[in-house]
């Protein structure tokens, strides 16, 4: 008996000692005081909070912002972005020309463009990459981004099987010609989306078939990129480290030696790591902490407009929401400004139209208004004077503190201004997605972030039968305006069509815009070259530490 008892202790203790000792050495914390020490001796290693663990690092299969942040360091598209304005500027292509009708782009690739293994970046590499992105077998979620190219959609859907029919062609090793369906003014800025990034063909083929998902090619050691950085380590749930790529054509202007992307899912944990000086920039700011930072250290808080709108969806097939007057009354009776100042508090702006103002130079002329008297009249006209006989409805949101607060305030506004009762209902994220996709809701919260800076990324949501049109709304005129905007490259004509479309949208209101998103982050004072941008992109080439 005694023997056995002892033997357990004998095993337990030695088992613990190596656990305590074997921990690998931690790099010294770069900043002991959050303020940092300005000077030349600052190690150029940027530590970023990057939210959740990325799903993958293959530009052709990912869908998220977390992934964008890392992949944009590892790969470079034909064009890159100005760090302040996000204007397209030369990337893998050193110059380009556009045909008069705006449909043919000819890119001249730079002769010193290199993959991280030393191979030259060539036009056929891009053709390979676009073919991979569009190949039916890969089933890339973002394949639609490439549909502006001639025959791209047909190839993806299998109607065209010969890729040479698709509008991309390597004229020679350094000349790439892309033919579009129509003049697309936002085409160049679209090229900064990872779906357009090149991949290194020999690497892809070494680890699997061209259209095979999730082969080991994205592992450290295997990853060959043409970006400013190369993949160094990838520790699941912990961090991804990228190191400066000495072979990059513009390596001499890059000052950062490495970037650590930390996977910290919880905003509060991330904020603590920032406060302790473990992070230079966070991916978000916990809601409860915003006011504290605004008061005590506003210089650490970066709030910038973000190309996204928070809105409510109406299911236009469900009474009483099938009546446009009811939808309009609901929209007119909420005080968006009050929601921004008293609930959100971080500098969000009320949304009076769906497309955020000045999106690629476009601002909607039509606006929704806040007019309780008019709302009451509309509700009476719909048959519910002073809310009498109004059947009520359920307001659905995915379980989240901020969505709940907004829903409660809107519920009260409707109660007070229209005398109608609304029931709040929350569902876990995936259940909520399922309900809204199936049309199993009456009113639901939603948000949309633009993929590129152009009104099209917002307005083509609501075309009849659109993949993301969960309102079931359909309007022939609206569809025509969106289609006519897509078929012209004349900026004035396009914007005119968008204006008309958005006027219809805001008159019929299958959706009710509420506020415009902002991107929020905490940033250490020593970080330079990191500017607020509309897409929350921060080209790392220009970032350095002081």
């Amino acid at each position, binding site marked *: *008996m005694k023997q*056995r*008892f002892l033997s357990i202790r004998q095993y337990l203790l030695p*088992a*613990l000692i190596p*656990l*305590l*000792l074997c*921990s*690998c*050495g*931690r*790099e010294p914390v770069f900043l*002991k005081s959050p303020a940092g020490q300005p000077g030349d001796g600052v190690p150029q290693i940027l530590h970023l909070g990057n939210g959740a*663990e990325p*799903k*993958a*690092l*293959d530009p052709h*299969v990912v*869908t998220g912002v977390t992934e964008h942040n890392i992949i944009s360091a590892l790969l470079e598209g034909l064009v890159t972005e100005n760090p302040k304005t996000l204007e397209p500027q030369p990337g893998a292509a050193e110059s380009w020309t556009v045909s008069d009708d705006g449909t043919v782009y000819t890119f001249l690739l730079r002769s010193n463009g290199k993959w991280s293994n030393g191979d030259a970046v060539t036009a056929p590499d891009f053709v390979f990459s676009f073919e991979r992105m569009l190949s039916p*077998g890969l*089933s*890339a*979620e973002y*394949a*639609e981004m490439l549909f502006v190219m001639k025959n791209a959609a047909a190839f993806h*859907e299998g109607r065209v099987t010969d890729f040479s029919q698709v509008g991309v062609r390597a004229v020679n090793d350094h000349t790439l010609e892309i033919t579009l369906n129509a003049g697309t003014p936002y085409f160049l800025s679209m090229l900064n989306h990872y779906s357009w990034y090149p991949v290194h063909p020999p690497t892809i083929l070494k680890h699997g078939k061209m259209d095979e*998902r*999730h082969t080991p090619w*994205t*592992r450290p050691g295997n990853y060959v990129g043409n970006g400013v950085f190369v993949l160094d380590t990838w*520790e*699941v*749930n*912990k961090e991804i480290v990228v190191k400066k790529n000495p072979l990059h054509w513009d390596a001499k202007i890059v000052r950062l030696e490495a970037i650590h992307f*930390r*996977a*910290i*899912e*919880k905003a*509060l*944990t991330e904020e*603590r*790591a920032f*406060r*302790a000086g*473990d992070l230079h920039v966070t991916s978000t700011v916990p809601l409860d902490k915003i006011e504290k930072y605004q008061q005590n250290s506003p210089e650490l808080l970066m709030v910038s407009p973000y190309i996204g709108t928070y809105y409510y969806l109406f299911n236009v097939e469900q009474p009483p929401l099938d009546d446009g007057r009811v939808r309009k009354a609901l929209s007119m009776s909420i005080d968006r400004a009050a929601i921004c100042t008293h609930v959100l508090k971080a500098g969000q702006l009320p949304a009076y139209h769906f497309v955020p103002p000045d999106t690629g130079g476009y601002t909607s002329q039509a606006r929704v208004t806040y007019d309780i008297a008019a709302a009451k009249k509309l509700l009476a006209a719909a048959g519910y004077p002073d809310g009498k006989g109004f059947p009520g409805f359920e307001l659905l949101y995915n379980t989240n503190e901020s969505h709940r607060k907004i829903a409660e305030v809107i519920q009260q506004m409707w109660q007070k201004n229209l005398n109608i009762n609304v029931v709040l209902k929350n569902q*876990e*994220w*995936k*259940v909520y*997605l*399922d*309900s809204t*996709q199936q049309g199993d809701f009456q009113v639901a919260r*939603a*948000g949309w972030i633009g993929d590129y800076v152009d009104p099209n990324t917002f307005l083509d949501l609501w075309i009849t039968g659109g*993949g*993301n049109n969960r309102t079931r709304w359909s309007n022939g005129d609206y569809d025509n305006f969106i289609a006519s905007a897509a078929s012209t490259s004349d900026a004035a004509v396009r914007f005119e069509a968008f204006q008309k479309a958005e006027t219809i949208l805001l008159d019929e209101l299958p959706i009710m815009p509420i506020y415009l998103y902002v991107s929020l982050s905490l940033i250490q004072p020593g970080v330079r070259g990191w500017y607020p941008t509309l897409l929350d992109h921060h080209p790392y080439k220009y970032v350095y530490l002081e």
Partner: protein
Amino acid sequence: MLRFIRSRLLEAIPVLFIIATLTFVMIRLAPGGPFSDERNVSPATLAKLEAHYHLDQPLPVQYLTWWRKTLTGDLGPSMRYGAHSVNEIIGHTLPVSLELGILAITFALVIGLGAGIVAGLKPNTVTDYAPMSLAMIGICIPTFVIGPLLLLLFALRWQIFSVSGWDTATDRILPAVTLGAPYGAYIARLTRAGMLEVLNQDFIRTARAKGVSEFRVIYKHALKGGLLPVIAFLGPATAGLLSGSFVVEEIFDIPGLGQHFVNAAFNRDYTMIMGTVLLYAVMIVVFNLLVDIVQAALNPRLRLE
């Protein structure tokens, strides 16, 4: 002994089978799937994605395929973290969670046994009330309060430990304390109760009457009996530590398995859910078995058979 272990392991087979089957059925009943997102993927792409992960096959076929692969040790690719397989993710994160769990239970035992023995020796005095009040607090305060509180004091204010991460030996201290504290508190109360009961027994009085030293009385005679309830508690405690590590891992940013166990359900990462549930089930069965063996070793009245 071996017969006991063998029969317990055989009993575990239907248990694991039922757990896996129920999990499989329940996750498929939950609305939404691994590929639903705010932005819809086109129906054609969705169909291809589902085909890629064999989700287009009839459920019984999928179920059998899963068992066939699992029995060969392959838990399949993660449906969310496509670049890594479930085996790889478990391989990376399980050692971290185990280390955290072992350190936490060690902390809980050291603190709990110490405080419990001290309290049990002099009941209803200051040395009883003080540790027992602390224990009560320890049981009542949840980890998501203790954790940030410890961080605020020891990491942010006094800068003794780092705020997040799992790199140095000192990074282990606060998480282990946070995770272990409630269990330590519970163990303290159990130890105290066990000690009180044993110290009033005749054989202790006999031992003292024979002039055995107080240290020997406690260490040799009282502790062995007094520890039995604590040992029995270790089984459920281990289960609690494993499934409870999620909160601590989030607070301290520890790359452990707990967060995958929880998030997989939210992500509808079917393969990851099945893999982690089965793994946890196996671990709990094993730990309970170990506890039973230790218990029998300590208590001659219990027969393994």
